């Protein structure tokens, strides 16, 4: 997988994963792997900065979850209303991009 492609679409990927329910970091990585048939495998080093940035931007909200293995409450990330709006916008944006690429490259996507 081209890491540049992942980097450019990381926000869309994370917001999509969290659309259905809040998840914590490790679970997000597992979900991404499962739902993409193993295609998306995040580096944790890029995941957490992205989650923190989306939280600071108001697209995600942190929630305290059950106690983790280190005895601390797990930090879950939930999509906010602003995040849902951003997700819709990014989906449209990606759809338009993918359509244009299909026309340009003659199919495949």
């Amino acid at each position: 997988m081209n890491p540049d492609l992942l980097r450019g679409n990381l926000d869309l990927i994370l917001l999509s994963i969290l659309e259905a329910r809040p998840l914590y970091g490790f679970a997000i990585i597992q979900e991404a792997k499962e739902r993409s048939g193993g295609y998306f495998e995040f580096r944790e080093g890029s995941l957490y900065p992205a989650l923190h940035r989306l939280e600071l931007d108001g697209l995600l909200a942190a929630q305290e979850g059950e106690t983790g293995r280190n005895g601390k409450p797990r930090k879950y990330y939930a999509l906010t209303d602003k995040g849902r709006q951003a997700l819709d916008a990014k989906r449209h944006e990606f759809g338009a991009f993918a359509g244009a690429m299909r026309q340009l490259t003659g199919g495949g996507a």
Partner: protein
Amino acid sequence: MTAPTTIYTDRALHAYLRRATWGLPTGRQQELWDELEEHVLARADQLQVAGLSPAQALTQAIRELGPPGSVTLGMAKVYTMPKILIAAGTAALALSAALYAVAGGGGKTVSLPVSTNLPMPVCQPKLPENVRVTVVSNWENSICFFRIAPGYPTNKTIESELLVTQQAVEQVVAAIGGESHLQSNGILSISIPSFPTPVSMARITTRVNATNYFPAHMLLVPTSAVPQYLTGFQRPIIHAGNQQFSLNQDASSDKVMPFYESISPKLLSSLGLPWGYRSSPANMHSHSVPTHLNAGEVVMAVTRGAGDSYQSNFSEVLDGGELSIRFDRMHVAFVSDPQRLKERQPDGRTPVLLVRVTNIPLNQLRQGIFVPAQATSDAR
């Protein structure tokens, strides 16, 4: 800047987290520390299920995080930290390789000899008069010494206690970031970071050929933030930090003293229980208990005796999860909490607490408590 508090972390993980959260605002630093720590532990659990050892799993989970410097840089951009910190973070990427070397560890195994049947000093409130002696220790109104004058009886030997050398204790304590110090009165004290006073003290048990020996339980420091855990029954291994210490019986001993019995005071203390009595082997009854545990795990069974004293017995889980263990009671009921050992069971059964003591951080030994699906047992 002091590091955020942690409950459970390997030394390499601790170093990684310190680097990865470096420079963040205080509240965010703790937050990210906790997130990354939980992530590593969750992934390590997953890898253990896949067949890796706990140490291997933790090492790989740390590796998968990627260079800590990349986390630092990523977070620096999120929290718009000063450019100087971003620049320093870039430089820190170069240090990440060194950290990887630590995390990738490949901890070595050190062999520690253990001994029984060593000559023991005499201990009494004061020294005898007109007798030449060599003092071994002087503590708590008790002086222990060897008589060196000719014609006196040979010193009493001990058969029931497993002993290790002072060097062995120092090595294991160093592996968890602690320090050991032998005082002039023959008392060894063990200190660990974040504790203002020594967490463990013991007098020299005996001295042979200028080598000081201590009880084997001095190898364990359950309060250490850098956790220790145990594996193996016949050949126990203490995992401490990135190192493993295998315990080898002194080839000259003619009686094998089980390691786990020798450390039972420390294990019981970790559960908040005092150690107390020991049953006669003639009064022991065999119980066969099906468990969910893997073969090779070691289980401690705790029962309560008279007063507030407790006894522990150890056994190894066999293939299929079968645990064959001996208690001094015919009919027992397994309980889920140490406090329930004091309760009288309505059916007259003796409460027993089962604790898996292998592959469990000793500072979280309570996590090893389990109640088998068959919650009672009758001796065969």
